[in-house]
């Protein structure tokens, strides 16, 4: 039978948010036996505080409230706690914090106020992103138990460091108080190191494990007096520590969301309308209902935009079966007709590009206007103008979207790798009507993040489907193709930069216009604050148009595209002026009043020196330099790096990144320099891949490239053979470095291509441009 909506309602048990059709009535008993993940099981000893449990054998469990997705947070968060706790690092075991407790308990008062004098105070807590106390954790950090549970904006260390250090210190002081009361000695006579407490004058020792139970019952009399160690006293933080979960990752034992197995679980495969904003017109479940393992089909609506930060995805249909492959195979054979909004289907990459370019010519929102730009152009000896573009880009993390959800009568369990569990908890409560305090979200490792993946509606899909099958756990898994449809995109963008140079080649006027669709993230990067490189007359405006593609916070956000525009244009200006691009940048930074200009100059100097800047290279090979900074236009927290990329282009036009020399600031101190090195190495090839290969185009309103045969991923043969990293200290706290380092690969390859071939490529990716030379 062909099912339309009316027939549907007559045969179906409708649950909020989804319609289910099938011959299988799930058991409600499952809800009463919802499995409790073993990692929340109460250990023999009660916790000292919400972050720390110490077992009698001295094993220290440290709870991690962010999600491990390769950035090393399981290790760095544990290091920050352990530094103050003074426990034996070899006995530390991370486990995920309970997002359910976070819904039920308030944070200790001592976590709520940042101590110290901000970004430039080494004894303080830096400048966490506080804003308001948004319980979903989106526009501010909640005051619920674990504070910030989001994993985004390279901010886990920036935001969490002071309260994680405090958590370790609070527990250490209570362990000492417990030992002091046990021995009836003044606590001041005790010392703690490596999980051992010593009373020097009597020679007595005990271990944390021996006094942990007593410490759990000993409140801290004055937690507001606890101080944290400044970097010059760190002994564990600042040292290279291997990531604690690597042994699990080399044996196949790490648990990602896709690996979750729950008794009685069924699998769901999904197809959402490939044109955003579209929905299901009809589908024919009868055509597949006798396929092996098939249990039901569920139509679900466009996920409520209030749960996806205003983004409009698509409605779709799921097939539920005993195994995922059965569900997918049946879904592939099920006839589905879509209801597609004609206006959305009219979008194509070419007309979207035209629309963005047209937006540049309309008056935009002027965000910076310094001096008189037009007068500057009139006086200029030379005008340089260039238009750049960057395509839509998905995250394409290796683990496709998935979530396992069990909705009971008054309890929801979710197993998911999620960059924003507090938001997902809210979605679960909203869709099911079950209060957030009864939502048990069990965090799993995530197979790549690259921008809050929960922006895509994997969790909302799974919750809607499971809500239509109350009592039965449903494991939803997107195919790779669905993952391309379900993710949010970095917005397609264009920029036009126009400069007037004086007779010596220095810029005297600069007009920067950028355009992306409404809702695009980081539409101005930091152009609205400063030109970065000195120019006395400066104007920046941003321009928008409306597209239907859901856009979000992909790695590097707006910064990645805007650095391509800004740094490419600096190279073009230097070439137009006949000056060396390194020294040109250096001089223009020196002329600014930017608070961190000396650190930026230092980064350029170190990278240039490391690379042998100016020494001869073989024909077909060139060096190019780029500066990367976030926050350095202000005087708060910042991260600054410079990179020199040595690039070759074969006569046939094949690009090879041969070598990268990196100067990176450490601020007052890095928590785990090993993880920072790994992040830099990885982001070099990430942005190389973006620059050389990656693009998603829009055809008839759809994403045209939805798997890796048409969306190429760089492999090991494209990784640069040589990467040299040198750290240099600066006098501020770092803002983070997990997402916007190595953006300079993009402009540097463009400039190297220009040096070698004479061609200037302004539209990413480089693939598709003829780069051959004779």
């Amino acid at each position, binding site marked *: 039978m062909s099912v339309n909506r009316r027939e549907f309602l007559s045969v179906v048990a409708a649950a909020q948010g989804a319609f289910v059709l099938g011959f299988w009535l799930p058991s409600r008993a499952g809800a009463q036996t919802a499995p409790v993940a073993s990692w929340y099981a109460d250990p023999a000893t009660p916790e000292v505080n919400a972050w720390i449990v110490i077992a009698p054998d001295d094993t220290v469990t440290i709870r991690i409230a962010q999600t491990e997705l390769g950035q090393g947070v399981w290790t760095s968060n544990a290091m920050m706690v352990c530094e103050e706790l003074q426990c034996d690092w070899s006995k530390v075991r991370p486990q995920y914090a309970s997002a359910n407790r976070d819904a039920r308990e308030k944070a200790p008062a001592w976590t709520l106020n940042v101590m110290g004098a901000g970004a430039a105070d080494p004894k303080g807590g830096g400048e966490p992103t506080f804003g308001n106390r948004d319980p979903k954790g989106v526009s501010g950090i909640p005051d619920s138990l674990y504070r910030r549970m989001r994993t985004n904006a390279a901010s886990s260390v920036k935001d969490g460091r002071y309260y994680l250090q405090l958590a370790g210190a609070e527990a250490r002081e209570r362990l000492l108080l417990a030992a002091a009361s046990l021995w009836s000695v003044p606590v001041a006579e005790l010392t703690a190191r490596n999980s051992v407490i010593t009373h020097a004058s009597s020679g007595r020792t005990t271990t944390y494990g021996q006094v942990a139970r007593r410490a759990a019952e000993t409140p801290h009399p004055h937690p507001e007096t606890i101080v944290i160690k400044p970097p010059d006293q760190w002994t564990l933080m600042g040292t290279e520590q*291997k990531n604690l979960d690597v042994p699990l990752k080399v044996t196949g034992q790490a648990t990602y969301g896709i690996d979750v197995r729950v008794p009685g679980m069924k699998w769901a495969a999904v197809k959402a309308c490939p044109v955003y904003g579209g929905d299901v017109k009809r589908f024919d479940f009868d055509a597949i209902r006798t396929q092996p393992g098939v249990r039901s089909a569920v139509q679900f609506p466009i996920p409520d935009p209030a749960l996806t930060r205003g983004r409009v995805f698509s409605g779709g249909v799921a097939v539920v079966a005993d195994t995922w492959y059965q569900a997918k195979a049946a879904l592939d054979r099920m006839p589905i007709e879509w209801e597609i909004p004609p206006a959305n289907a009219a979008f194509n990459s070419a007309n979207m590009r035209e629309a963005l370019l047209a937006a540049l010519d309309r008056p935009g929102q002027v965000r910076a206007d310094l001096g008189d730009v037009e007068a500057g152009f009139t006086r200029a000896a030379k005008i340089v103008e260039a238009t750049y573009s960057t395509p839509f880009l998905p995250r394409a993390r290796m683990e496709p979207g998935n979530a396992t959800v069990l909705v009971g009568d008054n309890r929801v369990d979710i197993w998911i790798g999620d960059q924003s569990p507090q938001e997902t908890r809210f979605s679960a409560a909203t869709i099911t009507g079950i209060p957030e305090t009864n939502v048990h979200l069990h965090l799993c490792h995530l197979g790549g993040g690259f921008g809050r993946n929960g922006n895509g509606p994997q969790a909302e899909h799974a919750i809607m489907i499971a809500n239509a099958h109350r009592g039965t756990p449903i494991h939803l898994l997107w195919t790779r193709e669905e993952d391309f449809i379900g993710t949010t995109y970095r917005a397609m963008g264009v920029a036009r930069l126009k400069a007037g140079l004086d007779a010596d080649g220095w810029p005297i006027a600069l007009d920067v216009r950028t355009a992306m669709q409404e809702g695009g993230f980081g539409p101005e990067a930091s152009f609205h604050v400063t030109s970065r490189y000195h120019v006395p007359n400066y104007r920046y405006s941003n321009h928008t148009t409306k597209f239907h593609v859901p856009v979000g916070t992909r790695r590097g956000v707006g910064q990645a595209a805007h650095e391509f525009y800004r740094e490419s244009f600096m190279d073009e200006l230097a070439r137009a002026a006949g000056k060396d691009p390194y020294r040109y940048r250096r001089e223009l930074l020196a002329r600014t009043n930017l608070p961190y200009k000396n650190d930026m100059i230092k980064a350029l100097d170190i990278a240039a020196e490391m690379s042998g800047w100016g020494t001869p290279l073989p024909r077909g090979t060139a060096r190019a330099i780029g500066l990367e900074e976030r926050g350095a236009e202000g005087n708060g927290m910042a991260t600054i790096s410079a990179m020199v990329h040595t690039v070759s282009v074969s006569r046939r036009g094949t690009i090879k990144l041969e070598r990268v020399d990196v100067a990176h600031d450490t601020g007052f101190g890095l928590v785990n320099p090993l993880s920072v090195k790994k992040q830099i190495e*990885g982001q070099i090839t990430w942005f190389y891949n973006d620059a050389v290969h990656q693009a998603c185009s829009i055809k008839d309103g759809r994403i045209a490239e939805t798997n890796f045969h048409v969306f190429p991923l760089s492999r090991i043969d494209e990784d640069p053979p040589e990467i040299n990293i040198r750290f240099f200290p600066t006098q501020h706290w770092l803002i983070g470095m997990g997402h916007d380092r190595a953006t300079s690969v993009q402009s540097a390859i463009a400039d190297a291509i220009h040096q070698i071939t004479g061609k200037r490529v302004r539209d990413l990716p480089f693939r598709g441009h003829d780069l051959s030379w004779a």
Partner: protein
Amino acid sequence: MAFELTVNGTPHRVDADPQTPLLWVIRDHVGLTGTKFSCGIGQCGACTLHVAGRPVRSCSVPASTAVGKPILTIEGLSADGRHPIQLAWTELDAPQCGYCQSGMIMSALALLQKHPAPSDADIDAEVTNACRCSTYHRVRKAIHLAADLMKVKA
């Protein structure tokens, strides 16, 4: 339909359509989840395991093709996580998110079985797995270290 697969030396009786891709039989019937799904079209290599000593992208071959042949997955690489490749990966802290690493390690095993002292060009040619975190820099070093460790062991 029931058939038998020998995985990591242990026979498993499986009740599944023999045309089901080997990956899904290993994950959902045999119950070993270390081998990962990512693209489903044999492009990325996250699902790499060995059948009869050769690396196979298991998302794209029917389970029936592995009947009667020994299958090796990441879980069977060593009993204690101390295979030279695992030791080298741990020493260099190679994984980031780790999702692709089971497949990457199984490809490295195939490479080292073919080229016990691989050149960089051998690595480029044989280890074609995709890693979005781009851990390639450490993976390359770890392959060379594993080759050294295996030489010492041999």
